[in-house]
């Protein structure tokens, strides 16, 4: 009884609605709601009964027979456990969207309920002719729904859908006829018994029908036009009911088709995935983007059908399709820019959750299916694995572009707000549920990094870095207030990161931290572009990491290709070697203390990854350490030079951050104890000074509202403490003794000399000298020189920003005067690592000795401070009191400077240096990246040329596909 109710209640509703006169829409709506709720309850009961909720065995089923005879005379339905999950989504989507339909087109209610009925029917159909019936009903209802609103683009969409469904009908009926003629049966199982010529015919016909209906790559065109043309509410309902039903039906039929080797599905799917996502890069309207995403999931279905079987197949396909359809539904609900109802704050997040689901970012439900699926592919079908990974990355790119373009101003129709919220809540619940179920796969033993000492260092770094960023989130106004939550999540994930014990855990925490940070960045003012770049590079490094981990087959990483992939992932995260593009875009726009967190703390995750790779593969040596050291050196030099010319304070700091991380890379590449000591020293030092600088920058931006050098200058009078802390940090990273920065350079140079890598040493030294250029520009451009009248109102930065800076400045002093505190801990830890070569530095009291050099930081510090103090006191007690004169009282050839802006030298600061550099060919990473983007866009345009927007072309595509299949399968068999 329950079974029948679950399926046929909507049908009943449809009839009642059609019979009820249109004069009483309220009554009909109440009836619909009642019936739908009852149906939903029935489905839920069924799902519980079938044990669908533990996802392990989704093929449990019950049979529902109606009528008397066997099909096709009656309708026999097999209600599977996976199907009930889909049915829940379908019911939910219908309930959520019913109100919108009732408000806009009240007469379409029977159609809505009819679509639900058809979807349910198709979902559970066991008979090929029954399927045909539901297929027809569904198509007709869709066309009717689309055309219900009388305007041009919707009519067009409806007509294209009608054309395609006509063709599909013909092909399908031919297949049915062929099947019946040779077997005399119409059940789905009968497909498997076909042999000979009719088998090929049926396979070809049905495969064409399926590919067309699920909108996989070559036959995507009509789907794109349909999604773009139809109204968002119809598209939302369509994707959550009909599209989902067709996908799951296809998933049911595909393994049964007599095509010989099913790997052909995987090839069609993988090729189609890459090509369609290339085309997707060029899409701009939200409908088309959803269309391409649908195509991606259809292709994934084909790949899954070709490569997996049994319960695993069902499980993966069900989770992927159900949740992606739900995500698309909520995006369609949100993505309609018709009414001006601005959502700030959680509206953006509401918008992001479905995007994260579609892109398969952990811990969203789709991720778990994708992860197991990709793991399966990686170990069995490597080529298909690469293709799928490429396609998924491309999908992530355009999805994030879509999101960042919308994250500025999300406009949501008021009517769809509750439904979108409900859908997102459903997804999040599912995420928690699935994560909870997969908990056993996670491992927090920290076995990736074998050394306790190193793990503790990183735990401490991440925790301290996050904590110091937190006070600064107070004193914020407007939308920037909300980022603290994401900062906290990201920091928490990072803090746990060193404890990860297997690849999955590492990847999970890595992605959570990265994407929480992405959301945090998106809270900044005018952060659209920066967020997009950050998201793209975060997903790039994420996918590289994923690829590396999966290719390692169980262990965290193995030498060879996986290690290289992981290394590249870390480089991208650090912004090394041309990938600094995201740093210089995201840091300047990130809100408040977010850039301090990103540059100071989050970038250390990449160092951790490199260390993990080195420890796991070779016990210390990174793959191609020399290449890495060169990359670090060249990056340090190039970005230092770029930093000197940067026009924006925070942009300059971003360049400087990348440049200083280059030194870490040089140290790690050395694979000697000295090199690693230098690398860890520099890592810790980088965290300290970079956070101090960015916190100072946050104060400056908070008080002046700008970080462009042309609008700043002379702030030392207004913000003396910020200046003092910034000064300490700058002296430190310029590696001038007696502050902390020198130690890292000294250890590194000794290590490089020990290894005999003198050219790297020279480039590194040159980079560290070029650092003087930007360090002075930084101090002068913001704090020294003339105070512009624009900033006359500026005050000292608020205390929550100053106190962490003070702590960090103290740390710099302590580390500078007594580096042995750190070295006494670092050196024994690193000596215990077996894979590291070379001699350890000897520490005698305050003295650090290497094979060739000595360094006594305490004595140097005493000497500098002592003589500074003596000079100071001497000047003070000699009774000479200089008179303070105003900032414009300059020896200016007898004239009075007209205004502060005219005597402040800020624009084009290192002009002669730029002129001297002009002989260098301008190899801008920007240009290379833009070239890559252009190439991809060109490819995308090429692929896109298939989709002309003309319905007849789409029919031609289907027929050509049919012919190609015929040639190919015939030849193959």
């Amino acid at each position, binding site marked *: 009884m329950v079974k029948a109710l679950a399926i046929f209640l909507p049908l009943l509703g449809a009839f009642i609605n059609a019979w009820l006169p249109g004069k009483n829409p309220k009554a009909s709506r109440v009836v619909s709601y009642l019936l739908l709720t009852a149906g939903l309850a029935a489905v839920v009961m069924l799902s519980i009964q079938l044990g669908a909720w533990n996802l392990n065995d989704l093929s449990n089923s019950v049979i529902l027979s109606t009528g008397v005879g066997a099909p096709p005379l009656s309708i026999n339905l097999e209600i599977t456990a996976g199907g009930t999950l889909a049915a829940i989504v379908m019911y939910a989507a219908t309930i959520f969207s019913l109100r919108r339909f009732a408000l806009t087109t009240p007469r379409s209610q029977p159609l809505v309920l009819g679509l639900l009925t058809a979807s349910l029917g198709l979902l559970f159909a066991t008979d090929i002719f029954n399927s045909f019936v539901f297929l027809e009903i569904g198509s007709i209802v869709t066309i009717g729904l689309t055309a219900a609103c009388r305007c041009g683009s919707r009519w067009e969409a409806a007509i294209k859908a009608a054309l395609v469904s006509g063709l599909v009908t013909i092909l399908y009926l031919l297949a049915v006829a062929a099947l019946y003629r040779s077997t005399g049966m119409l059940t789905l199982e009968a497909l498997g018994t076909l042999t000979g010529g009719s088998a090929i015919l049926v396979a070809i016909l049905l495969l064409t029908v399926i590919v067309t209906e699920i909108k996989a790559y070559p036959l995507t065109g009509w789907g794109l036009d349909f999604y773009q043309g139809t109204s968002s509410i119809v598209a939302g309902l369509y994707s959550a009911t009909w599209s989902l039903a067709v996908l799951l039906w296809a998933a049911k039929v595909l393994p049964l088709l007599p095509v010989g080797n099913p790997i052909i599905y995987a090839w069609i799917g993988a090729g189609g995935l890459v090509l369609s996502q290339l085309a997707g890069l060029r899409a701009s309207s939200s409908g088309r983007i959803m269309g391409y995403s649908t195509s991606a999931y259809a292709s994934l279905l084909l790949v899954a059908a070709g490569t997996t079987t049994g319960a695993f197949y069902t499980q993966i396909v069900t989770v992927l399709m159900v949740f992606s359809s739900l995500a698309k539904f909520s995006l369609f609900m949100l993505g309609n820019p018709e009414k001006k109802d601005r959502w700030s704050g959680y509206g953006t997040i509401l918008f992001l959750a479905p995007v994260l689901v579609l892109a398969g970012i952990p811990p969203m439900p789709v991720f778990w299916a994708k992860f197991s699926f990709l793991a399966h592919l990686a170990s069995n079908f490597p080529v298909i694995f690469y293709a799928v990974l490429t396609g998924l990355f491309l999908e992530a790119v355009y999805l994030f572009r879509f999101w960042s373009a919308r994250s500025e101003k999300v406009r949501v129709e008021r009517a769809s707000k509750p439904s979108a919220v409900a859908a997102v809540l459903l997804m999040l619940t599912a995420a928690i549920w699935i994560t909870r179920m997969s908990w056993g796969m996670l491992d927090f033993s920290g076995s990736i990094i074998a050394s306790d000492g190193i793990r503790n260092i990183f735990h401490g770094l991440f925790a301290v870095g996050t904590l110091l960023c937190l006070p600064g989130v107070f004193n914020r106004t407007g939308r920037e207030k909300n980022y603290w939550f994401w900062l906290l999540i990201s920091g928490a994930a990072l803090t746990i990161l060193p404890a990860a014990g297997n690849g999955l855990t590492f990847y999970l925490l890595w992605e959570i931290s990265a994407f929480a940070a992405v959301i945090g960045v998106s809270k900044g003012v005018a952060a659209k572009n920066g967020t997009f770049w950050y998201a793209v590079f975060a997903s790039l490094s994420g996918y590289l990491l994923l690829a590396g981990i999966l290719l390692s087959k169980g262990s965290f990483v193995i030498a060879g290709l996986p290690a290289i992939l992981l290394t590249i992932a870390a480089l991208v995260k650090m912004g090394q070697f041309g990938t600094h593009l995201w740093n210089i875009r995201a840091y300047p726009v990130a809100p408040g203390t977010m850039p301090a967190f990103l540059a100071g703390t989050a970038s250390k995750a990449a160092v951790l990854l490199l260390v993990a790779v080195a420890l796991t593969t070779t016990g210390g040596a990174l793959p191609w350490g020399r290449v890495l050291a060169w990359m670090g050196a060249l990056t340090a030099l190039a970005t230092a030079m770029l930093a000197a010319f940067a026009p924006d304070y925070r942009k300059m700091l971003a360049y400087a951050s990348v440049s200083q991380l280059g030194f870490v890379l040089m140290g790690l590449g050395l694979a000697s104890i000295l090199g690693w000591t230098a690398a860890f020293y520099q890592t810790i030092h980088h965290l300290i000074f970079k956070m101090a600088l960015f916190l100072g920058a946050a104060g400056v931006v908070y008080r002046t509202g700008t970080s462009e050098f042309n609008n700043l200058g002379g702030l030392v009078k207004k913000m003396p403490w910020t200046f003092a802390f910034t000064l300490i940090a700058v002296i430190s990273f310029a590696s001038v003794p007696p502050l902390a920065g020198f130690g890292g350079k000294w250890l590194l140079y000794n290590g490089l000399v020990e290894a005999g890598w003198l050219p790297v040493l020279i480039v590194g030294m040159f980079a560290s000298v070029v650092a003087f250029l930007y360090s002075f520009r930084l101090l002068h451009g913001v704090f020294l020189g003339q105070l512009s009248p624009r900033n006359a109102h500026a005050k000292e930065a608020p205390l929550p920003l100053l106190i962490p800076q003070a702590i960090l400045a103290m740390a710099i002093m302590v580390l500078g005067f007594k580096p042995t505190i750190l070295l006494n801990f670092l050196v024994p830890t690193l000596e215990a690592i077996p894979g590291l070569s070379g001699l350890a530095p000897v520490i005698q009291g305050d003295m650090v000795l290497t094979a060739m050099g000595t360094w006594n930081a305490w004595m140097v510090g005493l000497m500098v401070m002592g003589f500074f103090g003596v000079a100071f006191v001497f000047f003070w007690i000699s009774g000479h009191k200089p*008179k303070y004169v105003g*900032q414009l*009282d300059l*020896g200016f050839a*007898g004239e*009075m400077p007209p205004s*502060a802006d005219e005597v402040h030298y800020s624009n084009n600061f290192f002009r002669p240096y730029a002129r001297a550099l002009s002989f260098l060919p301008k190899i801008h990473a920007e240009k290379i990246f833009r070239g890559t983007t252009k190439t991809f866009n060109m490819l995308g345009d090429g692929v896109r040329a298939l989709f002309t927007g003309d319905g007849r072309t789409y029919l031609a595509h289907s027929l050509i596909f049919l012919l190609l299949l015929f040639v190919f399968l015939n030849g193959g068999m």
Partner: protein
Amino acid sequence: MYCNQPPEKPGNKKELLEKITNMARANSLWVTAYGTGCGAIELRPLHTSRFDMERFGIAMRPTPRQADVLIISGYLATKTLKRVIRVYEQMQDPKYIVALGSCTINGGMYFDSYNTLNVLDKYLPVDVYVMGCMPRPEAIIDGFSLLMQKIKDGRAQGWKHYKENLDYYRENQKKIITDWDLPDYNW
């Protein structure tokens, strides 16, 4: 932006130390490179090997902050006077003024010009006048040796006089500089 405090009145210094210092001051005269009139052309030969000003320790400084001597080289237009006052007040104590040519003494051949002041001493404290139109480099060196003698004797106190009688000088300056837009005190 600019200074708004009146100058402090200098006090008397210790005798012996002051004497030694005066010797040093006399032998290290740094001149502001600022030419006000046609006489500036006569200063150039002083650098050359023929006259060689440097052997007396006289050097040119490009910024008034570091200079001791301001040379008013010839006629002084009211417009230039404004700049000269500013340059002079930006020099650090002790500082001296050497005025060249008749024009600075009594207006010289520009005595009836509508924009050239006649008696420089009314506006700025002159320590040494060098007469002539123009004075030759020898005469300028002579003037400098006179200035050095005055400094050694502790008699070159024009800067002190200026500070003590600032009101008098300001009144005179403001009388002829009709669009006075300098800050009242600029040091």
